[in-house]
């Protein structure tokens, strides 16, 4: 809402406060003032001038040589505007004048002839093109005859004004009107308010003899009033009115339209003027539209209506979409002489729906959507009649043709001052509360500390005690509220075990050299199904799709964090950042049906993507690209760090992963994720070199955590280590061999580790050698050689039987 200070001064005395101070006070009391700025930059030395003569410039066809009387002198001014004529009163920037944008006016010679100033267009005075009336849009502005030559043109144009831009919250629609703002400012400043007096000189002819009103849908249109004003002369509205409209951001059109807009701004009540003679009947019928019914609106667009839309009809066809826009056929034009003026109360949801469906949100529809004051509907109509009488030569017929089923009951709120103080933590005296309520102009009955407040209908946002708490608090001032801390026994707060786990994982991965990343949860349709972990894939999920996505790049919910994480790698590599290790913790959304029927399950996942060099120490010639085992090592460390035991990495297959470099990760046979190199084809799609990824199900990981930590005595007896190397077929997975060794090694075998893998020269084709180092330990006694030898023999025999493994060397 744009509020002209000059206009506001009509209702309330603001002489002792600057616009900036006022803005600050309004903001602190509840309505944020976004800006308080002069309507145009400081302009000086622009006066009203009278064009005494206007002749062609001797040396230029398109220029005119004008003699202009500016009161104290006569200036010779060269003007290029096509509409300049002798006899006009115009705005003249005299030499030394300063115009918006810092332009300075000086005497100058134009094509050999001296020019002593400039005749101005409204645009040159800083008014936005879109507010300038059509007749002046391509030339200079011409005053009506009621201005004095030599007086300050800026003042006459009302450009010495400051505009407050109010950022209104949805509950404060009462301030979508100048009168509403005046009430608010009066309450804040504790001042009196002066409202317009509506007095009309009715002609002796009843409106009801010329029009009837019938409302078929009273719940959507509880009030409809039709006024008739005849003998209208359509023409420009007075300059002050035009200026106020411009200040509020509305373009002046003609006196009839301008008056309805003016009252809309003043009362917050939208009105509509029909051309009575072209209305099509003498009956206003309000009903819902029929399916596929058509109307040509006054923006010359044919619109197709539905049963959701409320329409004003002449009994036959629609003449307006209620509260949204009128029809072209009955629009007021230059020939209009009789106006049917509509003042109505339309249901907010209905207007909202229609405005949305037709993409016609206007000053009018916004006010209906937020709800207008039921007590001011008719009054606003009368105010418009008064102005039409004053400024359009109209004669107002007596009475109004109306349908009235409007509820104008005022809300009553009762409370005690103690109640208010208890909620606020204050000690405001009952007297002071009464004073605040009086400033708000709510009627108040008080008995000691008992209050009974009747809230005027303009404040439709107030109906319960809590609303009154707010009203009292904001006028009392939040600055005056004390600082306290909650009373009662202090509670201990702490993270849950799962929240702690998440933090631990962050710590570990960051300590291991990975950078945490955040990608968008919404991705493309294609990416939403990419790189899905086997245990998720198994559930045959269907990616969840937004009903109305804003773009294809964010249309579907992800089933894996990896596709977007890979896009982050791609982004960095395009910027020459080649060595990357990123991870993300985030949820995926698992839906099982083609259409979403219930809230889908979410699952927390931990994913990472690494590419480039893992280690780079150039001057010592140490360089190691990231590989499968780097990533596997990070994960093994992670499982150890968070205490998940018995994790197995099994060769497996995942779509989008290199089939020979892919491990499915399991705990106790349950798949919790995977690890692998990106498939070369996918790498190419993302413009990536060798890239390794992992993806883990954090919810499942949490289930497998060994929550109890146990103490094991430090061994007091010496251990014995043994190395064994076996030759096996190259397909035999090392972990199978290792498991067999563990199983056969007896209870003293504490640890088995691979320390060498060999394949190639001196080795039979299709065979490999794997060497293990074994550590034996008896916690109770010193081990004997016999015990170790026995275990060793057992191992050799077992792996020979199971894998045809030959002991090497």
């Amino acid at each position: 809402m744009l509020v002209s200070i000059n206009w506001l001064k009509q209702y309330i005395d603001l002489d002792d406060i600057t616009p900036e101070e006022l803005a600050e006070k309004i903001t602190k009391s509840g309505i944020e003032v976004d800006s308080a700025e002069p309507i145009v930059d400081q302009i000086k030395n622009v006066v009203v001038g009278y064009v005494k003569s206007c002749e062609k410039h001797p040396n230029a066809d398109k220029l005119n040589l004008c003699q202009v009387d500016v009161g104290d002198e006569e200036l010779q001014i060269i003007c290029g505007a096509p509409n300049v004529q002798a006899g006009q009163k115009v705005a003249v920037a005299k030499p030394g004048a300063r115009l918006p944008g810092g332009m300075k006016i000086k005497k100058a010679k134009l094509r050999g002839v001296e020019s002593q100033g400039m005749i101005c267009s409204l645009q040159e005075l800083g008014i936005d093109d879109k507010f300038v009336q059509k007749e002046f849009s391509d030339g200079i502005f011409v005053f009506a005859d009621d201005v004095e030559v030599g007086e300050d043109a800026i003042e006459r144009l009302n450009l010495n004004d400051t505009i407050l831009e109010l950022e209104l919250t949805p509950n404060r629609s009462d301030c979508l009107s100048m009168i509403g703002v005046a009430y608010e400012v009066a309450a804040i400043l504790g001042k009196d308010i002066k409202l317009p007096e509506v007095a009309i000189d009715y002609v002796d002819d009843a409106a009801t003899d010329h029009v009837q009103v019938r409302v078929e849908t009273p719940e959507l249109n509880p009030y409809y009033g039709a006024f008739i004003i005849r003998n209208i002369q359509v023409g420009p509205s007075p300059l002050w009115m035009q200026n106020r409209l411009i200040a509020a951001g509305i373009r002046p059109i003609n006196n009839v339209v301008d008056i309805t807009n003016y009252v809309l701004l003043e009362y917050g009540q939208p009105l509509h003027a029909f051309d009575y003679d072209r209305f099509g009947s003498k009956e206003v019928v309000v009903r819902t539209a029929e399916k596929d019914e058509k109307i040509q609106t006054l923006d010359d667009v044919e619109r197709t209506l539905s049963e959701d839309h409320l329409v004003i009809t002449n009994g036959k066809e629609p003449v307006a979409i209620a509260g949204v826009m009128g029809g072209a056929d009955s629009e007021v034009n230059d020939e209009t002489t009789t106006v049917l003026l509509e003042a109505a109360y339309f249901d907010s949801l209905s207007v909202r729906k229609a405005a949305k469906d037709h993409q016609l949100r206007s000053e009018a529809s916004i006010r209906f959507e937020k709800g207008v004051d039921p007590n001011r509907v008719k009054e606003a109509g009368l105010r418009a009649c008064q102005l039409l009488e004053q400024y359009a030569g109209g004669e107002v017929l007596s009475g109004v043709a109306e349908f009235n089923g409007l509820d104008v009951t005022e809300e009553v709120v009762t409370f005690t001052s103690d109640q208010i103080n208890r909620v606020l933590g204050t000690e405001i005296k009952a007297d002071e509360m009464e004073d605040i309520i009086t400033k708000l102009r709510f009627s108040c009955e008080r008995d000691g500390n008992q209050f009974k407040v009747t809230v005027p209908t303009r404040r439709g946002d107030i109906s319960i005690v809590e609303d009154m708490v707010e009203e009292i608090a904001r006028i009392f001032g939040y600055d005056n509220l004390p600082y306290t801390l909650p009373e009662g026994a202090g509670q201990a707060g702490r993270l849950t075990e799962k929240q702690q786990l998440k933090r631990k994982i962050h710590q570990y991965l960051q300590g291991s050299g990975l950078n945490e990343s955040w990608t968008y949860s919404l991705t493309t349709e294609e990416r939403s199904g990419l790189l899905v972990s086997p245990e998720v894939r198994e559930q045959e999920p269907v990616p969840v799709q937004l009903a109305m996505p804003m773009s294809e790049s964010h249309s579907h919910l992800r089933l894996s964090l990896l596709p977007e994480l890979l896009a982050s790698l791609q982004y960095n590599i395009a910027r020459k950042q080649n060595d990357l290790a990123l991870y993300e913790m985030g949820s995926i959304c698992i839906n099982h049906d083609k259409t979403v029927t219930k809230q889908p399950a979410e699952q927390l996942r931990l994913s990472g993507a690494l590419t480039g060099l893992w280690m780079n120490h150039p001057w010592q010639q140490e360089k190691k690209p990231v590989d499968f085992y780097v990533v596997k090592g990070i994960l093994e460390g992670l499982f150890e760090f968070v205490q998940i035991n018995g994790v197995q990495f099994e060769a497996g297959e995942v779509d989008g992963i290199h089939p020979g470099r892919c491990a499915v990760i399991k705990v106790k046979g349950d798949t919790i994720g995977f690890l692998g190199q990106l498939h070369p084809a996918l790498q190419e799609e993302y413009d990536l070199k060798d890239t390794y990824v992992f993806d883990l199900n954090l919810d499942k990981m949490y289930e497998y955590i060994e929550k109890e930590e146990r103490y094991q005595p430090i061994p007091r007896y010496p251990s014995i280590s043994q190395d064994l190397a076996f030759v096996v077929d190259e397909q035999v997975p090392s972990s199978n061999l290792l498991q067999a060794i563990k199983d056969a090694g007896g209870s003293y075998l504490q640890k088995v580790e691979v320390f060498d893998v060999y394949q190639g020269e001196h080795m039979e084709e299709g065979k490999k050698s794997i060497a293990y180092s074994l550590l034996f330990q008896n916690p109770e006694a010193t081990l004997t050689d016999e015990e170790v030898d026995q275990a060793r023999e057992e191992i050799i025999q077992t792996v020979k039987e199971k894998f045809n493994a030959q002991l090497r060397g």
Partner: protein
Amino acid sequence: MKERLEELRNEALEKVEKAENIKELQDVRVSYLGKKGPITEVLRGMGKLPAEERPVIGQLANDVRESIARAIEDKQTELEKEALEQRLREETIDVTLPGRPNQVGGPHLLTKLIQEIEDLFIGMGFEVAEGPEVETDYYNFEALNLPKGHPARDMQDSFYITEEILMRTHTSPVQARTMEKHEGKGPVKIICPGKVYRRDTDDATHSHQFTQIEGLFVDKNVRMSDLKGVLNTFAKKMFGEDREIRLRPSFFPFTEPSVEMDISCKICRGEGCSVCKGTGWIEILGAGMVHPNVLRMAGFDPDVYNGFAFGMGPERIAMLKYGIDDIRHFYINDVRFLKQFHQA
């Protein structure tokens, strides 16, 4: 014989002096003090001497032996010291060359800030509550006093999946869900961090995905001054002890009264500058007293219980705190951005 011994002593001491390494010193030891050495030789010829001279010569011979042995020992110590020094010299490296790089990763700035805020409120007795990002219309709106068709739903235009299911537009549904679980019994004292989604076109200041942290305290006799006190404590700990707060009335459907909290501008200290748009204050969060309808719908009796709630945007706080100029930085993962916030 006496002369011979003195001569040997001088000769030996000279050789010790000249020895350049342990080996040469060993040679001196062997050749002079060994069993076949010249001193032993001299002593062997002592039988030819008169009896009264024998002890004198014997004494002298021992002196000579000892002085040579001592000289060798001293020299050896000296040579060993030199050898060690030599070794240390040879082993010297350029300590200014760079070390073998250790991989260092770090948190995302949002995680870091959210954890910081979580910890601040945990310190004030709050717990951290989480909930789904794909929500029902009921928890996202209706339970929060935003019935269907409420104009305030426009304030947060949403990504719907079906008519009843949508991407949550704030983390408030977690508050509603948590309250419900308490079955009408307080206190409830939680903060809810998480991702939220709104129909915004991504640009420098808008993002269709962002984060929120909301807080809720429901108990008997909660006062608005408690809200002011808690927020003041938070603001001072988070932004600095010298910062002031102010509350401005505002509107949220789920609180009544509703306020917005500003903190004093750090840059201009309240004088007004471009960062605070000349006001001296910077908007940080929205808050208010929980609306009785919200309490009622979550199973709490508003005549017995009341409470306060607040909500803030970590992106906005991060942008203010670090002067970050583009919200998209948080979701693009440019490592040159990520690596700036590694400090623990």
